[in-house]
Structures are given as C-alpha cells and as structure tokens.
C-alpha cells in the first residue's frame, strides 16, 4: 500500500483543528480563583485633583461570569478612601463582592468619570456550541501564553534555519534530477506510509525496548561499581585499568564476539548497548564520588552516623547530580549504538528499517525517514533525561 498523496496530510491537519475546537468548546472550564481583582493605583486621587478630569481609574463596565469569575474584588492602593456604591473602601483595604445571579448591576462610584459603574454578570457558560466562542477566547489566551514561554525570537530563528536547510535540500534534489535521493516531501509521504501501516511504530518500539533493557542493565551495574570505585581505594586501583582499557573499544568492534556468544537474537544488540553505556556510567559515577567535598564527609563523620547512612544520605545524594549527567551521556551513546547493532542482527528496529529499505528496492525516502526518526527520538530521550535534572534533590548542584 503506497499512498503518496498530500491530501492525507491535510486530512490529518483538519482532524487536529476539529479536535482542538471541540475540546475548547466542550470541556468544563476551570478557574483557580473566582476573584476578578481591580486595583485602584496609588496617586490616582492626586492626579485627578491636579486636573486630569477625564482620568479613568476603572472601565465603565466590569464583566464577570458566574462559576468562573464571579467575585469582584476592589483593592484600594491609593492613600484616600474611595466610594463604591454605599461602601467606603479605606486605603489599603480590599472590598470583595460575590455575585450569584446573572444581570446588569449599576453602582454609584467616583472611580469612573461618569460617577456610575456597571457590573455585567454573565451566566455560567453551558457546554456546547453557544459557549464555544467564549471558551475559545480563553483557550486562545492560554495558547498565546504558552507560545510566549517558548521565546518567540529563538523559535523564529531556529524555524527560519530549518526552513532554509529543507529548501536547500529540496532545490538540490530538484536541480540534480536524482532519481534515487529523495526530496523532503518524499520523505514525509514515506514516513506517513510506514506510520499508517504500523511498521514505523513497531521499529521504534523494538529499538526503544533494546535501548531500555541495555541501558537499565548498564545503570544497575555501572552505578554500584562506580560508587565502589569512588569510595574504596583498593577497588579503584584494581578496576580502573580494566575500565580504562575496555572503554575506548567501540561497541561495534564487539559485534563478532557478541554474535558468537548470543547469536543473532535480541540479546546481541542489548549486550552491545550495555557495553556502550556501562563504561561512561562507571567513570562518571566514580568521578562524582571523588568530587564530593570533604567538608560534607567530615560533617557526617562528626555526627557519628553509620556507614550505611553515610552512603545513603551523604555519598549518593552528593554524587547524584553528576551521576545523572553520566547517565544522560550513556543513554545518548546507547541510542547511537542500537542503530548500528540492529543493522546486522534481528529483523526489526530502526537500524534494520534503514538497511532493509536500501536493500529492498532502494527506498531511500525510507532511509532518510529512518534517520530523521532516529534524530527525533534521540532528542526526546535526551530532553527526558534533562527533565530529571530539574528534580529538587539534585537542583542544588545546577542552581548556582
């Protein structure tokens, strides 16, 4: 089944747009605070006295919505009292007025030049089409807020560069008239094809599975060995030469031995990933333990804590930030190696996808698609590991 039509992509985009609209219209609105706060700033009275007769402190109409924002709060930061209806709001005071019924209310108020202030309370928006525009407006604000967080300038710069690169690629393919090297669009449609028939997800799943098992084994072995080497001098002097000797050997060089020992099943790539990621983990963990400042160890010894608590409450947490860095490096290496390992062994995974696409009919669009997917997945894995560095227990290390 080969479908290369761009309409499929458009259909997907349309589906996304419809889903977003439906979500905005139908989901219940939540609001963390029901208070709509208006502040009367300091110095407004003085400015009015100074002759700013048309100074508008509050808008002529205040809009509230039942069930979402239905408590009007007026805070007086000015240094003279302000009159709102029958209420005198003293300097520094907040006056809050909850509304329970939808209507238009008018208050005598000196805060607006007209001397009158209208509060319009809208009914609670029901789920459904009538509420959609109102809801979309609120969702839109959320989307804008998210995009503001993404730092638009950097976003624009990186988008511009990506577009430039893709355009160059496209032009080069078109100009050379190559029949084999794919254009960006062919890569997109190729990806859509293997995504829709499910093979893409199968390959990604297998690659992630092998990396996951190999990496977890490497951490399970590497962190304890690293901790031991960091704390016990004898262990360090004994193990360090072995580690340093094995470390520079590329896991690719182990492929023949791996096939000899484990055959061509799943164990081979897992073993290669384990080899690739265990050494960076060991080295980084041992370095992390060596780098612990002596004052912390001394303080713990001073309090006479047991060796177990010294290890659990001082050594491990003190080394953890650097251990995490080591794990991030190892995971990156593991991802590099899985692709190479899958090129030789089992009939699944992203590495197999690339080699198989080339062998079975020069499908270079799928070769490039596989490469792009590998890049994106690696990026996601790395950013997942970076998220770990935000944890409170390790942030002290990166905070300053």
């Amino acid at each position, binding site marked *: 089944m080969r479908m290369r039509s761009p309409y499929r992509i458009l259909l997907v985009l349309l589906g996304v747009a419809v889903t977003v609209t439906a979500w905005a219209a139908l989901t219940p609105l939540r609001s963390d605070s029901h208070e709509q706060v208006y502040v009367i700033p300091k110095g407004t009275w003085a400015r009015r006295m100074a002759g700013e007769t048309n100074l508008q402190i509050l808008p002529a109409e205040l809009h509230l919505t039942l069930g979402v924002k239905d408590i009007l709060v007026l805070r007086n930061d000015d240094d003279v009292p302000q009159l709102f209806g029958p209420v005198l709001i003293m300097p520094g005071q907040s006056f809050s007025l909850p509304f329970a019924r939808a209507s238009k209310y008018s208050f005598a108020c000196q805060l607006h030049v007209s001397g009158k202030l209208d509060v319009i309370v809208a009914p609670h928006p029901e789920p459904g089409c009538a509420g959609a525009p109102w809801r979309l407006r609120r969702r839109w604000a959320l989307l804008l807020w998210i995009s503001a967080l993404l730092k638009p300038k950097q976003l624009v710069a990186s988008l511009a560069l990506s577009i430039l690169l893709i355009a160059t690629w496209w032009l080069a393919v078109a100009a050379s008239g190559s029949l084999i090297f794919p254009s960006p669009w062919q890569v997109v449609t190729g990806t859509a094809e293997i995504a829709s028939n499910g093979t893409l997800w199968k390959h990604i799943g297998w690659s992630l599975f092998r990396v996951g098992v190999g990496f977890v084994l490497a951490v399970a072995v590497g962190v304890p060995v690293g901790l031991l080497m960091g704390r016990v001098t004898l262990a360090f002097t004994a193990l360090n030469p072995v580690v340093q000797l094995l470390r520079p050997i590329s896991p690719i060089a182990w492929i023949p031995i791996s096939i000899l020992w484990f055959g061509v099943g799943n164990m081979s790539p897992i073993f290669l990933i384990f080899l690739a990621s265990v050494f960076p983990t060991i080295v980084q963990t041992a370095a992390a333990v060596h780098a612990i400042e002596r004052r912390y160890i001394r*303080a713990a010894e001073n309090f006479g*804590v047991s060796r177990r608590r010294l290890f659990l409450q001082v050594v491990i947490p003190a080394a953890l930030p650097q251990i995490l860095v080591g794990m991030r490096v190892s995971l990156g290496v593991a991802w590099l190696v899985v692709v190479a390992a899958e090129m030789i062994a089992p009939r699944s995974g992203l590495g197999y996808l690339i080699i198989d696409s080339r062998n079975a009919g020069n499908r270079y669009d799928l070769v490039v698609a596989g490469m792009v997917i590998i890049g994106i997945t690696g990026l996601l894995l790395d950013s997942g590991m970076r998220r770990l560095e935000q944890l409170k227990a390790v942030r002290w290390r990166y905070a300053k």
Partner: protein
Amino acid sequence: MPNKISLVNVRKSFATAKGPLPVIGGIDLAVEESEFIAIVGPSGCGKTTLLNIVAGFERADEGEVKVDGAPRNGPSANGIVISQRGSVFPWLTVQQNLMFGLNGTHSETDKRAIADHYASLVGLKGFEKGYPYELSGGMLQRVELARALAVKPQILFMDEPLAALDALTSLRMRLELLRILAEEKHTCILITHNVEEAIQMADRIIVLSPRPTTIQAIFDVPYPHPRQISSPALVELKASILREFGL
C-alpha cells in the same frame, strides 16, 4: 573540678617537599566544663590544625589530647565542628539537615520536634521546608549552628564561624550565639581573627604565636554578659591583646 579537655605538649608537623614543616610546637591547655575559650593568632599559625586535632579529625605527632579524661581517637558527636565554609548538606531541606545528626534512639516524631525546637531557637521558623541554596549566608550559618545544637554536644568547636558573613550579620549572629549559649551551656572553643568577637564572647582568650605555634599569652575575661565592648576595661583588654600582635 576535672578538666573537660586537656592538651599536653601537643606537636604536629606537615610533610612537605622540603621536609617536615612544624606547625604546632608544643601546646599545653586545660579547658574546664562549660568554659568558653577563644583562640586568636596570626594567619596560618595552625589554629585550624589545632582545632582539628582536638575535634579528632587529625592526630597529633606527639603529646596527648584527652576529652573527659579519655584519649581522643577520632571525631565524635560529643564535639561538633562549625566551620567558616559551612557543611550544611545542600541536598537536604533545612528540617532534614537539622534531623541528620539525630540517631536511632529518637522516634521520627521526636526528631521532628527537636528539629522544630532548634529551628525556632536560631530564628529559622518558616524556613524548614526550604533548601539551603534558597537561603542567605547568615541563614545557612544558623542552620549549621542549629544542626550542631540539636545533638546536644558537650563541646562546640567553632572555626571562624562568622568570618564569611558581612559585618552587620556577623555582629547580629554573635549576639544571638551568646543568647543561645546562655540557654544551653556548652564547652566552647572558638577560633577567630576578630579580637572584639573574642572579648565579647569568651571567658578566656588564648593568643597563639606564629608557626610553629605555642601559647604566647592568656587573658581572662572575668566580666558578666552582656558585655559593653566600649567599656574602659574591655577597651584596655583589647589594647593589650593587640599589643601581643605588635599592634
């Protein structure tokens, strides 16, 4: 009354490329129970080394160090060191730091109660859940002090605990330390560069000579607390201590 701490002819050298460098050249000192000793001396004279020997982190080459009549073989929770750079664990919250030294004999609830008590004693109330990197230098020093006090040590070793703070914070902490020590009597050894700090806090001031260091002079400070640092007697005392440094 038996001495809390006694040092007899303590000597220590460091090995260097040019042969052994004598740092401590024979010190005899007896400290009584709940006495407050301040040690002042020129930079690099071996004050910190002396403190580390008494605290059990280093060993003297010669002579003997006894605490409660028993030789000092290593660090122990009966004498806690508070140092200038601090050793508050940055990966634990303030409360977890205060509970760190409390060992298995206390229940978890007890530990929390003790931590809360000392947090409020040093003015850390409301900061218990915070992490050290969120605190100022003065606050960190309070955590360090509270963590030490929480294990009820018989001896407090203070190695320039206030030197890293700005002048005002340092002065405020000095007065608070006096208030806290009046509530809980400890034997204290304070190492400081600040002669006024020594005069305001200590019962006895030991002046050390340059390296290899020996005791050059001992001053008694027999005045009740709170002490007015500008009173004529203390101004005179300060002048005579500074004369020991040739100032």
